[in-house]
């Protein structure tokens, strides 16, 4: 079943869309979907007061939700979902795919912070850019991403993959500071540049950067130069400088930094 949700008027204030997921809708008929409630600012509203709803395709076991329009002020799209799919034809807002366990989310525009917050499984694909804290646990917690995959075509913000234990994050654009902060496992691949401090306080896991890095933290030490490295779904050609760290936290994480993109890191080769 494929259901289209289109805002009747563009959102001016935050709307919590966490109740509209394939898991919640499964087994409902369309009138029940219409009477679901969402929070608009501090007011509770029926879904059909906010959206025009259309069933595009009755068939199919799987539930496919399509959000049409600008959802940059939405919260929690695909929250805790475990199956089905959600497509956002526009931008996606904060906490897209939080606590996701399975299924698939595609966002055609940009998303804000906390994409895939504390994700457990499933996949997220963002065609635009994303904010900070991708896959990171909410503040105060140390249980980060434990599985699933996130792909962002555009640029992303800071602290992506913080406390990540498993799963993968791929960024085709560039990334802000601290990718892989306090990482414990899993893989982060950045095809563009990184502003710096990659792998800060990481204990384990892999951060691969194909673009420019600028600098490596003093608490990392070079180990070797490798011609290529395994990415998420393909082998990436280097050569790569391989650093180990974060030694200030007795970490054994690996930082793979493209040699051709970072000629100034040549000074580390003397240790090899």
């Amino acid at each position: 079943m494929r259901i289209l949700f289109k805002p009747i008027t563009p959102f001016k204030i935050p709307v919590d869309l966490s109740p509209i997921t394939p898991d919640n809708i499964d087994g409902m008929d369309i009138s029940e979907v219409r009477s679901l409630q969402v929070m608009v600012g501090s007011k509770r509203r029926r879904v059909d007061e906010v959206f025009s709803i259309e069933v595009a395709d009755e068939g199919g076991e799987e539930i496919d939700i399509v959000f049409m329009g600008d959802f940059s002020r939405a919260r929690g799209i695909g929250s805790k979902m475990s199956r089905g799919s959600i497509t956002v034809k526009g931008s996606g807002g904060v906490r897209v795919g939080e606590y996701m366990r399975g299924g698939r989310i595609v966002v055609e525009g940009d998303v804000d912070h906390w994409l895939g917050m504390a994700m457990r499984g499933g996949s997220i694909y963002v065609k635009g850019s994303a904010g900070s804290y991708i896959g990171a646990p909410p503040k105060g917690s140390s249980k980060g991403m434990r599985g699933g995959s996130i792909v962002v075509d555009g640029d992303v913000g800071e602290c992506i993959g913080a406390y990540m234990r498993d799963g993968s994050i791929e960024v085709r654009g560039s990334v802000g500071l601290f990718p892989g902060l306090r990482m414990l496992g899993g893989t982060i691949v950045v095809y563009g540049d990184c502003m710096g401090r990659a792998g800060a306080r990481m204990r384990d896991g892999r951060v691969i950067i194909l673009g420019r890095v600028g600098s490596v933290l003093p608490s990392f030490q070079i180990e070797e130069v490798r011609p290529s490295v395994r990415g998420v779904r393909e082998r990436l050609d280097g050569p790569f400088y391989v650093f180990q760290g974060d030694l200030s936290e007795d970490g054994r994480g690996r930082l793979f930094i493209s040699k051709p993109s970072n000629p100034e890191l040549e000074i580390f080769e003397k240790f090899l």
Partner: protein
Amino acid sequence: MGKPILIRNGIVYDPMNNIEGEVMDIAVKDGVIVEDIDERGAKIIDASGMLVMPGGVDIHSHIAGSKSNIGRLLRPEDHRRSYEPRTATTYSGVGHSVPSTKVTGYRYARMGYTTVFEAASPPLKQKHTWEELNDIPIIDKAALTVMGNNWFIMDFISQDRIEDAAVYAAWLLKATKGYGIKIVNPGGVEAWGWGGNVFDLDEQVPYFGITPREIVEGLCRVNSILNLPHTIHVHVNRLGMPNNCWVTLRTAHTIRRAFGGGRFLIHITHCQFSGYAGSTWTTLRSGAEYIAKYVNSVDHVTLDIGQVVFTDTTTMTGDGPLEFRLFQSLAGKWANADVEVETGAGVVPVRYSRRSYVGTIQWAVGLELALLVRDPWKVCLTTDHPNGGPFTAYPRVVSWLMSSKARSRVMEKANRRALKYTVLPSIDREYTFTDIAIVTRAAPAKLLGLRRKGHLGVGADADIAIYDLDPRKVDPSSDYRIVRRALRRAAYTIKGGCIVVVKGEVVEDISGRSIWVDVGVPDDKIGELLKEVKPRFEEFYTIKLSNYPVPEDMLIESTPIRVNPSI
């Protein structure tokens, strides 16, 4: 205060007045319990088949002040797992182990508790404590004042100026609107100012020429000179470390050795945390038997158990070095907050696991203390909230005390090796409803010297808990789940003559009293001493002496208890 109330046909447990499960009526007028009232115009509560007890009194709970707030700040993840939305009568709030102010009051009231003592407040930050206590609704509250590492107190004691120490302590209580003398790791927290600690009663406190023994004895004497309603309230040295039950016993015994009993008493708080034998964590054993044996043989010692509950919680104490040790072994979050001249504080989140060896021993020690000390009047039920677990776990603790079956259920899943080293499996004592009424109400009220609390006699404050539980029909030993459930949500809680909770829901959001002790030391005596103290005070502290006291108008419903010292 609302209109008069008549509670009809309740099954009343009021140990202070020797009432054990009698069916009787209780009349309430103008906030107190009265002989009789005119039924016309009165609110009638039909309590037939229900358990009626005085409102609960918590002798030791960290609910407000700098330390609690550090705990709240440290734990957003704790708040996300437990929250209460706003209703027509109540404010919203969050927090599993460190609840925000409003819900703290609501949760106590829902359990039928009406009086709670904040366990440790540093005088310098006592304005903060009172601001938070003011924001906690419904319950009556008071705060114990931390003195065991106070430079002025230590200096006076080491110079043998006990009377001056007493005058200073009296001023501290008056200035901070405190209720009693709290001693936290005497001398040890001062040593933590240098990153150290003091591990035993006769170890020297660096630079002060004094030992913990002298501090405890000195403050016990001060307590007696001032005629304070509560005894000294002691968190002993070496708390939370293996093999500390001997320090606990020595601390308790030093009072008897020095003064031979009489009016010289000591309350050992959260005794579970200082009831360990065995020299290391891996060989940890329960020391509860030794402590219980001693407490049974003397009459100058009382204790609260500080029961551990298997849950995720937040430890917080003025014992800075203890929290540092805990951080060393857990390597998670750790907050520290030293307070100049007076004390320190630390906060570390922990999780007590029944599968863990240490966790199981700790769980057993608390229950053993409660079950092996024969006289329930010497025992108060606490979890040292939130150190052993949040206060919301009290009904669970009650079920363990009342039912050996409930204990066995836990032991089935607990650490086997640990159980081999405890006597708990062999204890078959089960608390009666009277025992429970004693350890949760009557004994704490008596120990705190609260004459109008903890009982239902004429003239007592109308703080009453009514539970939907018929003690004649329910056998707590087998139906412990029914007891637990009933105690979690009182059918009615009446506070100061006002019905605040009905069927476990808060129906009226009122503010409670702020209780403190006004020691009647003559003003000229205090003035004279402060004149001497002022230059040193302003050299050591970073605020002026005149800005130190808590003005009385800061307190909501200020309720001083006047005492006459023998000075």
